[in-house]
């Protein structure tokens, strides 16, 4: 692999065990099944999927909150998986996070100053006044000000809390920030403020983002590359514009087609097209082969036999779909287009 890679994930598996009656290991649940991803310094990778797709498990594993079951995560030249959840400070201060729910991600008993300077206390020898100066600097970076230092989280709106969380994540000027659904709990009118803020900080500081979200359209705006997950597998990966405008995998297409548009006329056309398409009535999970086979309009017999490997796609990136086997880029029939 190229030297210029910040985070590299290879064949990552994350498995949870259901606790059984006596607290012993029960049935395994594989949240991530062999994921491969890489992020370059200063690059933003959008990781998109629906609930249960495993995207948050990848985030938690990278953050060292959940141990990987197998596979490797390399950060710079450090192998993280062997340390399970015990990262050394030199790694910890390089990877920070912003979580989804701004109402529970800030400790209610701490002041804004405590929250923003907590990373500085843990990782630097700054004294109180130095930390305070830095805290004011950080708050100004996220359009808050010194007067907010002494307040508690409950005195802020959701958007403002998310700004505080970002300020805290920026405190150590990390190389990578994991953003786990950073705006999905916010009002529509404040979402873009946060997106803009994140974008602006990235350009100024050269931070890489791993952006976890369920909304492809939103991710597309600030990602350089996008990876799409379905039931633990990464089914498509590629440059942001290519994935968004010319999705290759049938699931990515379905995902994009399902997002309601702001154009009522286009919606009506799509609905008419869906009505004429044959209804798919099958369980979502399949045991062997491609995880999407039961819902896929382009399913082939071989899809049942094995998980398709990642094939290269025109325009960059890969899709784990047999439609792209042999380089022959065939277009899966897009629901909206056939009508």
């Amino acid at each position: 692999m190229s030297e210029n890679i910040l985070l590299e994930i290879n064949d990552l598996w994350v498995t949870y065990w259901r606790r059984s009656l006596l607290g012993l290991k029960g049935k395994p649940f594989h949240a991530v099944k062999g994921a491969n991803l890489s992020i370059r310094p200063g690059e933003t990778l959008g990781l998109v999927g629906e609930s249960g797709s495993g995207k948050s498990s990848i985030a938690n594993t990278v953050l060292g909150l959940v141990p990987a079951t197998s596979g490797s995560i390399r950060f710079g030249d450090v192998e993280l998986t062997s340390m399970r959840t015990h990262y050394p400070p030199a790694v910890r201060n390089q990877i920070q996070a912003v979580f989804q729910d701004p109402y529970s991600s800030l400790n209610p008993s701490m002041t804004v100053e405590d929250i923003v300077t907590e990373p500085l206390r843990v990782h630097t020898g700054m004294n109180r006044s130095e930390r305070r100066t830095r805290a004011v600097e950080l708050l100004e970076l996220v359009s808050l000000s010194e007067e907010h230092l002494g307040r508690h989280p409950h005195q802020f709106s959701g958007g403002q809390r998310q700004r505080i969380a970002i300020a805290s994540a920026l405190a150590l000027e990390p190389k990578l920030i994991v953003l786990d659904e950073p705006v999905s709990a916010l009002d529509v009118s404040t979402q873009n403020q946060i997106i803009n803020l994140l974008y602006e900080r990235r350009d100024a500081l050269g931070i890489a983002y791993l952006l976890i979200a369920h909304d492809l359209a939103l991710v597309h705006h600030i990602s350089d590359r996008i990876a799409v997950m379905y039931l633990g597998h990464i089914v498509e990966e590629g440059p942001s514009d290519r994935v968004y405008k010319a999705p290759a995998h049938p699931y990515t297409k379905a995902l994009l087609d399902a997002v309601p548009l702001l154009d009522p006329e286009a919606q009506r056309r799509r609905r008419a097209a869906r009505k004429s398409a044959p209804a798919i009535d099958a369980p979502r999970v399949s045991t062997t082969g491609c995880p999407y086979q039961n819902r896929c309009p382009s399913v082939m017999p071989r899809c049942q036999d094995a998980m398709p490997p990642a094939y290269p796609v025109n325009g960059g990136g890969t899709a784990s779909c047999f439609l792209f086997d042999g380089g022959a880029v065939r277009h899966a029939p897009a629901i909206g287009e056939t009508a």
Partner: protein
Amino acid sequence: MTVQSAKEFKTARRPRRRLSASLVITVIATSVLVLLAILAIFADWIAPYDPLKQNLIEALQSPSAAHWLGTDDLGRDVLSRLIHGCRIAVIAAAEATTIAVLLGVPIGLFIGYRGGWWDWVVMRTVEAIVSIPGIMVAIVIIAILGAGLHKAMIALGILYSTSFLRLARGVVLAEREEVYVRSARVIGASDGRILLRHIFPNIAPPLIVQVTLTVGAVLLSEAGLSFIGLGVQPPDASWGTMLNTAAAFMDLNWFLAIPPGIAIIVTVLSVNLLGDVIRDAVGRGIVVGVKPQTPAARFETFASVAADSPLPPRREDEVLRVEGLQVMVSSREGNEVPIITDLSLAIAKGETLGLVGESGSGKTLTGLAILGLMGAGVRTTHGSITLNGRELSSLTEKQMEKVRGNEVAMVFQDPTTSLNPAFTVGSQIAEVLLTKKGVSKKEAWERVVELIHRVGIPRPEERARAYPHELSGGMAQRVAIARALSCNPSLLIADEPTTALDVTVQQEILDLFRDLQEEFGMAMLFVTHDLAVAADVCDRISVMYAGEMVEMAPVDALFANPRHPYTRGLLRAMPHASDRNPPLPTIRGNVPRPGFWPAGCRFSNRCDFRIAACDTRVPLVGTDRLARCVRAGELAMEVAS
């Protein structure tokens, strides 16, 4: 609601002058405990007699001037013994509670954070101890240590440490999952630091409550143990030993039982009441209202809000008609704050009206107001709601019950919480048919299976017997829709019915709504925050902001040509709207909370088109499409050009 006189609804509620009961309780309970402490410390000086001095000639006397509370079997002064009993009570409570906290909390913190085998072994042991009656545990420990106050208190301390252990462990387990603790781990804070700095401060409130509970329990147990002769040993005076004496002479002088009994009750009651007050205060402390961030801003004075919206034109096939609706909510400070003002709308048969807005816009409450289910502290102060030609405010609660389900039904946001977890989904639909339609059980079940099949759930007979938690979110929402439609209502209110669902499931549910509307022909009020979802299912859209309608238009017209700056801002801010890199278009500032709406146009403080005229109240104007903006005409032209 009929239109009430303006005067009646103008009378702003003053903050209620109920010097809160909790304050009175706090003062009294604290005084009792302070008195107890004083008596305990200065017992030697305060008590009129030596508590141990016997005088057999004056035994078993009733209260008199010399002995205010009489004397016991050995002629000892009851009042003096009672006062000295305070000392024992204080020592007992302090000793046992301290032991319990010091023993329980650290172990609980440790096993909660550490988990694994440590946790398993300690918790099974605690469960074992707890499954032995507490008094029996204390008796066994006393058997080992011997009787006496301090030994008994060590026994009680060990016994009650189990509850502190479980409390501390429970808090740690809950806190471990908190996002802010995960954040601390991401930052790289050490385990010790996380425990002490991030988790421990949050353990304090429940700990204080538990301490008060334990103090009360210790006092009762100490009395009990002394009563059966295993606690404080005679001749020392404790309330329990005094009761022991009293029990023996119950038929000679029953009054002996009264003073120590009252002393115990009053003390325990004070401690418990104080604990309750603390617990309530802690619960309140977490949710503190947001103070306005801009202190100088002018806020609307609500007495002046007039119903100035043009009433929707009457139509033949009208199902719902709302005129001039105003809803107030009582705030924590006791005054009433409007949350919906001047709302008028109408929906016809087979039509879907979208009610779009962000949090706090009042859109959800509009739906609940129609059903008459707004909950405590919220009331309609103005306006009328007519359903199928009938004014709903004139109906009794019984009549309203008939209307709900039969004429209007609702689908809620989160299907996993809007279905009762205790019953199968089929039985919940059948119940509606049985109570509302009076069909037989067999008929009801057949209809249930039919409905479940109709909403697109495969294997309906089997799924009807499933419990809500056994279904996916999408399936559960289909069941909720089936239930809502079971009595064929003429109006269906859908409150963010797809917000909790994945986008591919959302699409299926939206299609289902459309299909069902074609088949059943009901009118729909579709509440959502997502303009794109509204674009998919609605015929007309009404945009809400800060409790009022700011724009209403047929769906195509609204998206082609939004007239209100807020609608335009929202549309441009939608992720799909722009196809470029940031900076993305934004609306500056935040959605104002109810009670902090700007005077005049409520959007004016966030609007790029603000002029002087925006500072006075702006009416909703128009006929076919409505907008509440003084520059709506200009903006329309700007878009057209």
